[in-house]
């Protein structure tokens, strides 16, 4: 208690009777309550951190890929023994390119060709995808046959894992995917400077493959891109039109009530139900192709519609009524008022909502599983009617693969997905900040 100069007669004042309010106990309970709150937040944040750390620590290595650079002899003996390539183009297609690759590695390391085990180990160092790679080199320039050229080949998935130190070497040799002989050869290659770890462009460009080192997100990215385009083309105009009607024209009655209830419900219907709808209506009833981005896009459009409608209505509502009365006051019709004045002012809000809706659609998996987007698609789709997969579906499919390298690719693909989502959400935030208007 401060002795106050303002209360000179303090002594005379009857000090109010002190009552016991149980302050100590109550402040302790207050502190406890606060502590619960902080604990809750810490738990939430801890999971966020664990989630990101676990994904990134498992996935960042997917962005580099062990490669082996060796001089390859395009031996005529192996590729085209009888010199028929001028007459039979299939000859160059069907040649035994893995043997070419194996011999290249073996020759580089100086392995005795009669040592069968060593030769096999040498062949297993290189990915099976070298078949395609070498074939394309030869087909592009058949005159190369008989010559030697330095080529960078992908290492096989298990060797890639071993090189990244992801294979537990304390396990008995018989129980692990990489033999001691292979490790020895790998180390010899490393000493000779033939092993490199370049950025793994293949992760972003390759199609489906059963071998991790040549499996990539190319088809999935294009499929997702097609789907996002379909979602944009379908749900943005419909969503904006519906919002304009509900917000600017509709009188409140049974019909608009029904629509409102429906929109709110669609926003909360489990996504897998939309997949069933897509399967039953688009594929079985309208006979659209399975696995096609157009069907996926339509399903996702229906899911995104409520998000866009809710955001657009909020944006329209935030345009002050004075703008409307001003427009009507100069004799504009209601349609002119909406399209000339209100809608342009609501555009930033609509765009923000659309981007957020698209981001949600990009990460959606369950409905796509039902319309057959879990397909093994190795060739790039040229249009939205051709089979494709989607980014999250590709991630899901990779989880079913056993190899260690696929675990890494799964996490790597998640990082790619999260980067796309981050870009979209940041764009939305920047848009909102930039164009936010205070009336």
């Amino acid at each position: 208690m401060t002795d106050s100069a303002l209360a000179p007669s303090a002594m005379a004042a009857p000090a109010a009777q002190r009552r016991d309010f149980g302050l100590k106990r109550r402040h302790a309970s207050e502190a406890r309550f606060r502590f619960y709150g902080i604990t809750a937040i810490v738990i939430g944040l801890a999971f966020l951190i664990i989630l990101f750390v676990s994904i990134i620590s498992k996935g960042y290595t997917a962005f580099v890929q062990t490669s082996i650079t060796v001089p390859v002899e395009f031996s005529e003996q192996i590729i085209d023994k009888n010199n028929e390539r001028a007459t039979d183009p299939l000859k160059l297609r069907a040649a035994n390119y893995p043997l070419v690759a194996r011999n290249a590695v073996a020759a580089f390391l100086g392995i005795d060709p009669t040592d069968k085990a060593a030769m096999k180990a040498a062949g297993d160092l290189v990915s099976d995808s070298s078949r395609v790679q070498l074939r394309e080199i030869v087909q592009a320039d058949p005159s190369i046959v008989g010559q030697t050229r330095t080529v960078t080949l992908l290492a096989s998935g298990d060797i890639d894992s071993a090189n990244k130190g992801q294979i537990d070497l304390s396990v008995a040799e018989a129980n692990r995917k990489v033999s001691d002989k292979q490790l020895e050869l790998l180390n010899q290659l490393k000493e000779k400077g033939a092993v490199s770890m370049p950025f793994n462009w293949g992760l972003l460009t390759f199609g489906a493959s059963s071998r991790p080192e040549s499996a990539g997100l190319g088809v999935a990215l294009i499929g997702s891109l097609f789907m996002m385009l379909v979602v944009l083309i379908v749900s943005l105009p419909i969503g904006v039109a519906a919002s304009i009607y509900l917000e600017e024209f509709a009188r409140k009655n049974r019909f608009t009530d029904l629509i409102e209830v429906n929109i709110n419900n669609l926003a909360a219907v489990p996504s897998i139900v939309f997949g069933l709808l897509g399967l039953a209506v688009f594929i079985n009833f309208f006979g659209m192709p399975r696995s096609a981005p157009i069907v996926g896009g339509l399903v996702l459009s229906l899911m995104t519609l409520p998000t866009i409608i809710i955001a657009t209505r909020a944006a329209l509502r935030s345009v002050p009524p004075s703008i409307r009365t001003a427009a009507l006051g100069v004799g504009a019709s209601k349609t002119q008022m909406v399209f000339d004045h209100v809608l342009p002012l609501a555009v930033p809000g609509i765009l923000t909502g659309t981007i957020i809706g698209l981001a949600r659609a990009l990460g959606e998996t369950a409905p796509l599983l039902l319309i057959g987007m879990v397909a093994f698609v190795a060739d790039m789709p040229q249009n939205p009617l051709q089979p494709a997969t989607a980014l999250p579906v590709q991630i899901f499919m990779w989880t079913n693969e056993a190899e260690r390298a696929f675990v890494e690719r799964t996490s790597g693909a998640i990082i790619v997905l999260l980067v796309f989502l981050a870009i979209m959400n940041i764009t939305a935030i920047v848009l909102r900040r930039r164009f936010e208007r205070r009336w």
Partner: protein
Amino acid sequence: MSTGWLIAIVIGIGAVAYLMAAQKARGLAAAADRSKGEVPHSLPAYHGWFAFILATLPAIALFLVWSFATGFIVEGKITAEVSSRIADPAQASLAVGIVHDAVRALEALGLTGDKVPPTFLALREAASAAQFSISEAGADYMVTLAAEVSNDHAMYRIIGQILVVLASAGGAYFAYRQVRLRLRARNKVERVVLSTLVVASTVAVLTTIGIVLSMLGETIRFFSEVNPLGFFFGTVWDPRFAAAGSGGSEGQFGLIPLLAGTLYIAAVSMLFAVPIGLMSAIYMGEYASPKVRSIVKPLLELLAGIPTIVYGIFALITMGPFLRDLSAALAGGTPFIQAQSVLTAGLVMGVMLIPLVSSLSDDVITAVPRAMRDGSLALGATRSETIRRVILPAALPGIVGALLLTGSRAIGETMIVVLAAGVAAKLTINPLEAMTTITVKIVSQLTGDLEFNSPQTLVAFALGLTLFVVTLGMNIYALYIVRKYREQYE
């Protein structure tokens, strides 16, 4: 002429109609004698749009109707021909599919008239060379039929295209004739715009109807083969051996174990998410300084932006193995928590639900008027007393609504449980074991190459309808509560 070109031509006609009508209206307006009260009703542009709409909309409508109608005619022709040869409906529908493939192959390869392969085998070879795969179970009559159908297609298409172009031109001409000084072109155009808006806003209703009808249709087909009682009350889920017609299949499609798993996992996730979400919302709203709030709130909302597949994989490769190893270490060897378990799925789903619970309860709590808070604080209540004794009781209906919405999300969640809960449909009360859910089974019944008309696939729609009805009920009730609650304080 492809459909794309046809539409381009129609739009071209519309554009010409626009220009001509606008030009005519402009001429009329210029010639009008305003002193006699001759004032144009609408701007030339509205006359133009009026003409554009008349030139395009009816033509496009005609195109759609024509496509559907001729499609049905052709379909009827195929079905009639096939079913006159094959009695068994299942076989017949298979054959119809093959004919469709054959038609597609013929049209893609441009084989008409003499170039049509004489036998089915020849067609198949020609098709496979062009990367078209056709089932081998076809017969030669199908080739003839397919050739006829593809001829019909071509004929109908040409007739249709001529009709559509004529309709478009006719509409344009009619509109051009209509253009007068006092034509209420703007009102007419606006009425079309408004109708478009109304149609767009019914899409939401149509989607709901589509969901209900499509699932109801397939569910009825399912119940025509499987006893509904066996589905709703059966305790055994084992669809593999319940091939159609094998008899004694009732009980194999038991919903109970799936429903139990679904509710159990949802309950575990709520048990985890509700206290954390609610407490963090309270702390953010009532205690945190603006600075802390501006950092922590978006961070927690990040959790809401992460796709569920990511949570699923987190459960699969991090959380599950961690819990298993932890239990193994605790028990000294044998793990008592399985990597795929109710606990793993529930825990990870709980993390996903934290931001949802948090933002919903934040909305609800901030809806409690400030006067309540002030009234309690002015009596000398501490913040926590105010929250626990005044704000939370006042917000209770809203919080219940929020929890219902969260629960319906938990029940309908798919990817986390697909990856983390397991596929074994069993009834257990041990949360450390694997259980499966309705959504997992919908996915597993519909992925892979399954015969589409078998109960094994149709059951997915019955499951989906069950899921839809349950979540719909929860959502509607929750929205009703929340709305009532808001009104109370408005």
